[in-house]
Every structure is written in C-alpha cells, then in structure tokens.
C-alpha cells in the first residue's frame, strides 16, 4: 500500500472548492462594473449545466446533444411557479431541479438503450422536439413572442437583483461541484468509468448499468434544470430560442474546451464560452465559424478536452482518474 497517495480525490477537491469560494466572494466584493458581474453570473450559471454534461459524457460516456432542453424545462418550470402559482423563488428553484430531474429519469431508460451515434441523434432530436413544443405551447411558454416576460426582481433589503443572483448562482455552483466530485469519488464513480469503456465488463462486476446510467442522466438533467432556472431568474425575460439546439451545442463546447475527465474543466469551459463573445469585438458575427473550427481542432488533437490536454502538457502528468 502506498501511503503517499490518497485513495480519494475528495481532500484535494475540497481545497480547490474552498479556494474557488474565496475567489468568488472576493470578486463579488471587488466588482464595480455591472458588465463584469453579469459575465461572472452567466459563467457560473452555465458551468452548472456543463458539470452535469461532464458527468454524463466524460464519466459515463453517454453523449447528449439535448441538454439545452433540460435547461429550458428548468427555466419554464421556475417561471411557471413564480408567475402562475405565485410561489416564492426558492420553491421555484427546487421545482426547477426536481421536474427536469424526474423527466430525465423517466426518459433515460428508453433513450439510453441507444449508444454512440444513435444516442447523439436521439438526444439531438429530443432537444429539437423540446424547442418546437416550447415555441408552440403558448399558454405556458408564451411562444417565441413575447415568451416569458417580467419575472419578478429578487432585490431585497438593499441587495440588488444582480447581487442576489450572484450569490444564488455562486452557492448553486459550489454545491453542484461538491455533489459532482463526491459522486465520482466512490464506487459509483468507478462503476461509471468502467461502464464508459464497456458496459459488459461493468455489469459482470455487479454494476446495475441501466440504473447507473439513468441516475447520471437524471442528475445531469437536474443540474441543467437548476442552471436554466437561474438563467430565467437572472434575465427575467426569455423565449424558446434561448433553449434551442444551439445551447446544447454550446454546453458540449464548454465540456470539450475544459475536460472530459474532471468536473473542474466545465468551469473553465463555461467561463471561456461566456467571456469570449463578450470580450472580443465582432466575435458574435464569426461565433459559429470559430466554435466549429475549435471543435474540429479539439476532436482531432485533444479529444479528452482542450483544458486537460494543455494542463497535462504544462505539468507533464498523465491523467489517472
């Protein structure tokens, strides 16, 4: 037995998590620009969904091109709870986690009978179906025009709406990371990683592969839902086009820009995808072209994730999970 290396990554993860919490708090206190704060809020919100996709794609090896739909379901669930049911925001957030999580769990069994490119096709189609329904089901979603408008401001007791959202998104992100890193640290995570290489091997070891995959799918959906609900609360107005196929692809971009082997990559990826369009003048025009080329490049030269590959180049470490 080596005593020098720990058998859990959790201690290590906890240190980084604490560091991140400190940085986020300091940033909130130091930030004066509304613009910079909004970039941080959006990055944190998207990172939550990207973490879910990392678990699904990176650990369990199941691709989903429909995560944007679960973000949308979370967003509409929150809006419905706030506007139609007049529930308080915390309850709306809980509903926005539970509903997509449950839907994800129910859809998982049939959809995860697919694998590889069929799963990609199936989830892409699922996302497209959601978009069509969201654009057409006007009584709930308001369609494409006007969509959902005028969600209540969350400002209370001298805290501005943005401040509250910053805090909510920060706490949500830190909890999502904590859940994700502890999830993959134990036997459940090891089972998933074996399953990624071979479901047969995992099953012969005693892993209930169908259940494990459904759980991860549901968790990824729940995290997407949380992310979508926060986005809805923050923006206060949105329509179906915010949750189309494009969003699902951006989430995928976040994961592969970061890493397929660690949850931390999602934060890097989300930050990059949110910051670039806001920082570079005229980026929006060439956005798709650049995303496309970057994705092609990553898949050719760093299929386990750009951030991870760069990190390994710098530290010259081989990844061992």
């Amino acid at each position, binding site marked *: 037995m080596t005593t020098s290396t720990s058998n859990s990554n959790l201690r290590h993860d906890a240190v980084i998590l604490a560091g991140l919490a400190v940085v986020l708090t300091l940033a909130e206190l130091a930030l004066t620009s509304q613009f910079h704060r909004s970039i941080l809020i959006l990055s944190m919100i998207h990172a939550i969904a990207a973490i879910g996709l990392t678990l699904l794609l990176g650990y369990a090896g199941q691709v989903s091109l429909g995560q944007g739909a679960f973000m949308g379901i979370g967003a509409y669930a929150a809006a419905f709870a706030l506007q139609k049911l007049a529930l308080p925001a915390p309850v709306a957030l809980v509903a926005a986690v539970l509903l997509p999580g449950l839907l994800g769990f129910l859809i998982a069994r049939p959809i995860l*009978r697919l694998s590889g490119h069929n799963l990609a096709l199936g989830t892409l189609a699922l996302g497209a179906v959601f978009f069509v329904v969201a654009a057409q089901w006007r009584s709930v979603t308001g369609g494409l025009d006007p969509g959902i408008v005028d969600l209540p401001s969350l400002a209370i007791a001298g805290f501005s709406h943005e401040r509250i959202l910053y805090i909510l998104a920060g706490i949500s992100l830190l909890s999502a990371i904590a859940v994700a890193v502890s999830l993959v640290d134990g036997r459940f995570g090891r089972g998933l990683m074996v399953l990624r290489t071979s479901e047969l091997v995992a099953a012969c070891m005693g892993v209930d592969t169908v259940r494990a995959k459904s759980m991860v799918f549901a968790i990824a959906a729940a995290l997407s839902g949380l992310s979508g609900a926060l986005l809805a609360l923050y923006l206060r107005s949105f329509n179906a086009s915010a949750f189309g196929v494009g969003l699902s*692809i951006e989430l995928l971009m976040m994961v592969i820009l970061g890493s397929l082997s660690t949850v931390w990559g999602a934060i890097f990826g989300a930050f990059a995808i949110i910051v670039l369009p806001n920082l570079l003048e005229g980026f929006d025009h060439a956005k798709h072209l650049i995303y496309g080329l970057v994705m092609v490049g990553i898949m050719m030269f760093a299929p386990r994730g750009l951030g991870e590959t760069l990190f390994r180049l710098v530290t010259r470490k081989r990844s061992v999970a």
Partner: protein
Amino acid sequence: MDTLLQILITGLVVGCIYGMAALGFTIVYNATKLINFANGEFLMLGGVLLACAAQAAKLPMSLALLLAVAGAALTGWLMQRCILDMAMARSSDPLTLVMLTIGVALALRGAAALAFGREITFVPEFGLLPLVLIGNVYIPSQGLWIIFVLALTSTVLWYMFSKTMFGKAMRAASQEPRAAALCGIEPKRAAAIAMTLAGALGGLAGAMLAPISAAFYENGIFLGLKGFAAAVAGGLGNPIGAIVGGLLIGVVESLSAGYVASGFKDAVGFILLILVLILRPQGLVGRAIVTRV
C-alpha cells in the same frame, strides 16, 4: 377528399427533399460507416448559394443551380479530404467522429452566415413546368420539378451503384477494402467520392427547396435531422429505404400540419426518429440485425 389529396401531395414534394438528403447520408454511411452530422448543411448551402447566385449576382437560374450543386459538392470533397481523412486515421471512436462532424456543421453554418448574411432570402420558382390542376387538387410547378429531379437522380444513382463496376467497388469499399482497391477504389477514394456525392445531392435538394421555403443559414439543423429521420426509418444504409423514409416523413409531417396543428409539424419527424431508433433500430422495413458480443 380534395384537402387530403392536396395535403398528401404537399407532403410527397417535401418528402422528396428529405429523401434526397437521406440518400446522401446513406451513401456516406455505406462507404465509411460515418454518421455525418454536417449533411444538413449541404442542403442549407445549396439554398443559400442558389439565392446568392440568382438574386444577388443575377445569374440565370440554370447556371445558379449548377453553381449551388457544385459548391456543395466541393464542400463535401474538401471536408473529407482536409478533415475527415486525417481524423479517421487518428481515431475510430464513433463519438469523436460524431462531434467532429458537428464541429464541421457549425463551421459551415458560421461561414455561410458570414459570407451570405443572416437574412432569410426568397428565391423565385424555376418556372418552365406548368402548374398542374387535377380537379381541385394542384401540383405546383416547383413540386413537379422536385419530383422529377428525385426520380432522375435516384435512377442515375441506382444505375451507377448496381450496374457499373465503379458502383460495385464503391459498395465493397467499406466491407472488402482489398477487393475494392483492386478495382481502383481505395477506401480513401471511396470516402471522398461518397462525400462529394452527398454534397452534390444535398446541394441539389437544398436548391430545389429554396423557392418553396426560402434560404436561411440556420436551415441545416432541421433539414439534417429530417434527413437522418428518413434514413433511419428506411433502415440505415438502405438507399431505397432512405427515399421511402423521406416520403413517409414528408407525408406524416404534412398530415399533422393539416389535421393537428401546423406549428407542431417539425416535431413529428423528430419524434418518429426517436421512436424508430429505440423501437425498430433496423428501420421500419428492415430485418433484425444480430450484434456480436
């Protein structure tokens, strides 16, 4: 009765387009076992190129059509030669290749938006052929063009693939690379030819569709998905199935637009795709495939 017939005809016309998209997808799949998520972008390119050549550059329609098809075919060839050949040599992981073609699709969409703008462009009908009226049911002139073009291209392709040495070698390329190489068709060459053909077919289909539903740089996603739906419904890899699947999806969509709600028509094809993938992955007509453990 007349309404039903009218709906069926509208569905068949659009179904021809889906069938052509599915055919290109199938040819590539048969040559390299690649699921090309950029296939829909060929249709988008066909439409956008046609709009640009005919509207902005004021070229005659026939020349514009030729340019659109050639442009999409060239795109297919370049994509295979410059990107996929290298990627396929590096990795055979299906997921990596899938994401690679998604990247290519994104890049094409972005390039089209940059080059031709983000407006929805309308293109005039090709004309020449008449509008046919049978009782109260009519077939639009562009619809006749589309049916005619599908019939022609599928006959030519059928002849090429099943009657010529070249076609047999192409079909052998993915199963028996050595035998195919003896006929002068190495796997790489077969892949390039297949992708060029898919580009041409997609470009043609997209250009034919443009007068009916306008050209737009974001059209590729939905058109591509419907092409997949058609190919999968017909049994992946089966060219005749692809066309039948295309017609089927066109008709089902049109029926649901006519009798249920027009806004939901796009969802119908996608739901069909999901159901077929899960319940009958061998296609609606095919026989069960045994996978080895």
